[in-house]
């Protein structure tokens, strides 16, 4: 039978190598915070087909904002097509403006006089101090409470096994792995393709969390069942459980891969980065449930950390020290 547990430190090393670039990116570049977290205003402007160059268009849009009394607006362009009609979507970030302010009206008239009557502000999102602080606080609280609740549930669900708390802890470690992967990727994609961390991103992270645990539990359930049935040593029981659930893990990953790819290709501009994050998170979640969560149970069972330092036996740094 396929032996996945023997190479566990290789799998941990792959995980770490995936996480490290993201962590470096977070430390060096930070996160590209969306308007939900940074405050200010975000405009989405629909402009009918125009002949100007990209840079020219960006400058013209910025000019409209400056002339309307909004200094320091930053524009990012995106192409779109409906019914064979080309158009441009301009995403503009600016300082906070009130939706009923004179500046807003000035921008609207300025844009229409420059780019024609079909120009329109598709969305205007302004975020002030009150809402902004709340988003950050609630997101962190949500992740924390969800972790505790899941850990508690697993502890209860695995109370028939010798060390029930381990299952909860290992599931949460695997979950935190996925959170780190996703946040690190988001930071990299932030400066690579301008992906923004906003309220939707937080929703994606929370979804990744629940799917990651969902996947891990299916493997753990097999471990629980096989422990009851055989008196094999723990390592072999865990390996057999992983292999037995492998097909299911991959097939389920496939089906969510299909639906998410469909959303990515056809779901529209507004949720593209949301879906991208979900896709990355779900792949990471499947990986961690196969290659991290159950393997950590073995590390714990053997108390392998006693060999990590000093005895020269370690092949890689531990994933979760």
């Amino acid at each position, binding site marked *: *039978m396929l032996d996945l547990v023997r190479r566990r430190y290789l799998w941990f090393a792959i995980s770490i190598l995936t996480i490290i670039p993201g962590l470096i990116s977070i430390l060096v570049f930070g996160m590209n915070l969306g308007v*939900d977290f940074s405050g200010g205003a975000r405009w*989405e402007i*629909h402009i009918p087909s125009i002949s100007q160059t990209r840079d020219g268009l960006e400058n013209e849009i910025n000019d409209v904002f400056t002339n309307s009394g909004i200094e320091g607006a930053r524009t990012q362009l995106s192409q779109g097509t409906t019914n064979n009609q080309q158009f441009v979507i301009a995403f503009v970030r600016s300082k906070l403006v*009130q*939706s*009923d302010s004179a500046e*807003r009206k000035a921008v609207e008239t300025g844009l229409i006089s420059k780019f024609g009557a079909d120009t*329109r502000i*598709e*969305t*205007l*999102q*302004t*975020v*002030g101090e*009150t*809402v902004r602080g709340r*988003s950050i606080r*609630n997101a962190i609280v949500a992740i924390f409470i*969800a972790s505790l*609740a*899941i850990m508690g*549930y*697993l502890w209860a669900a695995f109370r028939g096994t010798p060390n029930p708390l381990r299952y909860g802890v290992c599931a949460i470690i695997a979950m935190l792995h996925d959170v780190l992967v996703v946040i690190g990727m988001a930071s990299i994609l932030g400066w690579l393709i301008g992906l923004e961390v906003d*309220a*939707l991103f*937080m*929703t994606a992270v*929370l*979804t990744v*969390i*629940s799917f990651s*645990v*969902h*996947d891990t*539990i299916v493997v753990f*359930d*097999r471990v629980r*069942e096989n422990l009851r049935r055989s008196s094999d040593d723990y390592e072999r029981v865990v390996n057999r459980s992983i292999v*037995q*659930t492998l097909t*299911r893990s991959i*097939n*389920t990953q*496939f*089906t*969510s891969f*299909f*639906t*998410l*790819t*469909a*959303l990515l*290709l*056809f779901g*529209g501009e*507004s*949720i593209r980065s949301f879906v991208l994050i*979900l896709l990355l998170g779900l792949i990471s979640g499947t990986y961690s449930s196969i290659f991290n969560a159950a393997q950590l149970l073995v590390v714990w069972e053997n108390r392998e950390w006693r060999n990590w330092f000093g005895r020269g036996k370690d092949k890689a740094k531990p994933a979760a020290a």
Partner: protein
Amino acid sequence: MRKQVISALVVTIVVVALASWIVFFPKSFQSLTGRDVSTHLGLDLQGGSQIFLRPADPNEADLTAKLENAAGVIERRVNGLGVSESVVQVVNGDSIVVELPGVKDPAAASEALKGAGNLEFIDPQGQYLPEGTEVCTTATPRYPITVQLPSSITGTSGVTTTDSLSNTNPLSPTSNLTTTTPTTPTERPCDTPYTTIARGTDLDTSQVALTTDQAGRPAVFFRFQTNSDSANQIASFTSQNVGRPMSIVVDNRVISSPQVNGSLPGEGIITMGSTGTTVAEQNSQAQALQNQLKYGALPVTLIEDSNRSISATLGNDSIEASKVAGAVGLIAVMLFMLMYYRLPGLIANIALLIYTVLSFAVYNLVPVTLTLPGIAGFILSISLAVDANVLIFARIKEELHRGRSLERAVEDGFNHAWPSIRDSNASTLITSFILYVLGNGLGVSIIQGFALTLALGIIISLFTAITVSRMLLRLTIDLGVSNARWFGVNPEEDAAEVAALSSEQA
């Protein structure tokens, strides 16, 4: 055929028929049951505005109570804007969120919400207009604004029609204060509006204060700016109408109809009604009236903190895009299931279609406001629904590999898969519950919609996987399908695998 198969089949048919009725013929369902089951679209799908309002002074006393009060008034104004399915909520006790789906001019809407409200003193033509009456006036000829008043407002100002209006000189006799039964006003078409005597814009709001009349009863003092039209008109009206009522109106809605006790030279006091109310009640009535005179209808000055406006065009594009994505994703999943799992795959696909219809029926019935992340949550829950089936079929296959009979394999497969389905779905339910509760601060309906669709998806998928799939599998066996090949198992080829498995298990 087994009895349990027949009963599960009947349940399934009834549920699916009911769900299809709701999804495909919502009008006929509504006419028979009186329940609106049309699809509710969030403002990111139909366009609209979400506005967060915060108090100008966050350290104000009794802030939460005042915000609740203001939210009630705003809700009425929102209804006045003609917006359906709006949401007005106090969030965290320190701000108000207003969602206006489909609103065309977000700037105007925001202005109307946080404005001071339109205060008027009108001539009610001798009628004691009851509190809450919708009126149209010469200054604001709009009538009627709403059909139904939210109940939350009526409690905020307990001013009764027995209030009386006196000038500040203690000359006017208070003995003529009588309990008057409010006469039901005849509904006036808007071409004969009530005459506006004085307007709130002329009121010197810094002078509005709580006081007592000469008999010691709670009262509210008010003064119009000297020589303003309102001051002059109220003086002449009151001198000609002693003993008759005058109505105070905010946003075309009567808040009080006191009786005129004497001529008011541009200022006066409004005494709270004396019969049937305790002093404490009169005090709180006076407080409420003072707030309404001073701040229009809003007891706190509100500032727009955040705003999210989405055009209807973008919303429409998003719906179309989601439909395409949903269809493509569903078809891809179904093809995969059919090719990999064969007959069980077909059964899973039927269960999946039933799952889709049931989901939308439940969304419309609850109702769940569908948002873009909500639709994403649904499309994602498709793979969760399939996952339960994948778990079961994998187990059935294993049992078949072990050489079990088909019938036995199906039963054991379900029983063995159940603990993992239960525990994994329970953890996802926990997460969506936490998301729903904390979603308030993260943008209200957007994230709550996602959490709700995900949670409902899990519950419905448990029904389709456990009840529908199992019933269909038993049905096919009872109908005589006995070849394991239909389940993707080849006995000869798998002989080696079976041997390997049994040696592992030994």
